[in-house]
């Protein structure tokens, strides 16, 4: 069986001037200024099989989100290759890219459009997303009127209700209150049962072990080891 995600030898570094903004004059002054450089990812190689749920565990700043962004096609690696077979739904930085001035319904509509869905497809799932996130009372208000928890729930609901072959999710189980976290785990379990694959990122190992088949350990930009796990009941 062919893996849905395979990445080989991915490396990524970031470089910025010590003053964290760019000016035209940096071009000319560059040799005189110090530069901050960090190697975010070092020679990452792994694969995710169809239907497999893989966790990516590591401390803050170890390169988890960078790796996820590269897999999602949002960022190019310096070297190495990424091969993703199928459609992707991603959830980064506790949000789904909503515009504060637009209502929940408008945001969900554009979210779907940017994922390549037709208007009919989007309209058919909007009510489910709103209901899952529990924001029916606020659905026509601008998102800026939502509490932080409501925004997080709406983002998670949008990312998980979009049909995809692969789900890439960053700190997805840190969303909302305890009741919503249980709801999230149930949703993730249901998604797993459909045969979709996922790569979940977290710095909470217990969360990952609840839903993942395998956990990869990332430290200072390098994969150190992996662990096969059996999902534990919450």
């Amino acid at each position, binding site marked *: 069986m062919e893996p849905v995600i395979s990445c080989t030898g991915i490396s990524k570094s970031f470089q910025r001037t010590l003053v964290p903004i760019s000016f035209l004059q940096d071009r000319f002054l560059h040799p005189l200024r110090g530069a901050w450089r960090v190697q975010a990812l070092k020679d990452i190689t792994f694969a995710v099989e169809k239907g497999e749920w893989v966790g990516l565990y590591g401390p803050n700043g170890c390169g988890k989100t960078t790796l996820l962004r590269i897999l999602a096609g949002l960022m190019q690696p310096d070297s190495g290759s990424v091969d993703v077979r199928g459609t992707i739904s991603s959830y980064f930085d506790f949000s789904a890219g909503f515009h504060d001035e637009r209502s929940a319904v408008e945001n969900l509509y554009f979210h779907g459009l940017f994922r*390549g869905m037709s208007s009919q497809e989007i309209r058919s799932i909007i009510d489910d997303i709103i209901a899952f996130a529990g924001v029916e009372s606020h659905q026509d208000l601008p998102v800026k009127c939502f509490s932080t928890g409501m925004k997080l729930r709406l983002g998670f609901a949008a990312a998980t209700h979009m049909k995809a072959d692969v789900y890439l999710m960053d700190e997805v189980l840190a969303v909302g209150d305890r009741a919503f976290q249980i709801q999230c785990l149930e949703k993730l379990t249901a998604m797993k049962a459909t045969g979709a694959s996922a790569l979940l990122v977290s710095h909470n190992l217990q969360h990952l072990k609840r839903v993942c088949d395998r956990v990869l350990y990332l430290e200072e930009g390098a994969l150190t080891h992996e662990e096969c796990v059996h999902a534990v009941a919450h």
Partner: protein
Amino acid sequence: MSRPFTIAHSLRVILAMGWSDFVLKYRGSFFGYLWSLAAPLVKFLVILYVFGPFMRDAIPDYPLYLFLGIILWEHFTHTTMGCMTMLHDKKSIIQKLRFPRILLIFSVGWTNFIIFLTHFCIFLFFALVLDITFTWTRFSMLLIFVQMTLLALGVGMMLSSFSLRFKDIPHLWSVMTQILFWLTPIMYPYSADRPFFEALLQVPGLMRDISWVRFLDIFVRFQPLSVLIHDARRAMIFSPSQAPSALHALGFTILCLLLFSIGVLIFIRRSQSFLQEY
């Protein structure tokens, strides 16, 4: 990857996003859309009051001449600046979802085109009031709409491609547009003694013994925005016999298309780095 973006779906995204941005722009403000009229109207009234007495004799239908020049200028500056501010306004989407970034540029073009069309309707109303004769040649303005959009988006894409990396560019461009405003025949006459492309062939000869005055004269005459605004006036205000020739229209459309294509190539190439340049 995401689902493939077909042309039909891309068009749906551009139209929906552009219209939504137009609505969102004025949502919650008391005067709403009327704000889009404020800047060109104030500029028009001030220039008409200050320069009108000197220009009325030299330029027939000067109020129309001036108003058309101003709304075309406003479209160009708002579109080019919009292409740069879009990268910040749509930051949350750009950072989270994978899709062709160029669709956001085109949606900026659509939003500004809607605003321009409303201004153009006001122009048409005054043209009717002032008894401008309407003939089939006036429809050549449709091609000028296309040229105007290609030119503004082409320049806008070139600027926005580098505006995240070099934060000075939006500031630099706002200063340059102030200079460009005076180097575009918006309030003064455009001097053309022969067809544009024929005159263009004379430029190498004119460049000999170049002085600042001659350089500025050549720049004002041949910079694309001057030609575009002059063509729009020839199409809509001057007598039908002065409408742009088919050959001229074709040549200028190719030039605008070339600038647009260069903008597209640069933008697509640079858009891969946007995420790490925020």
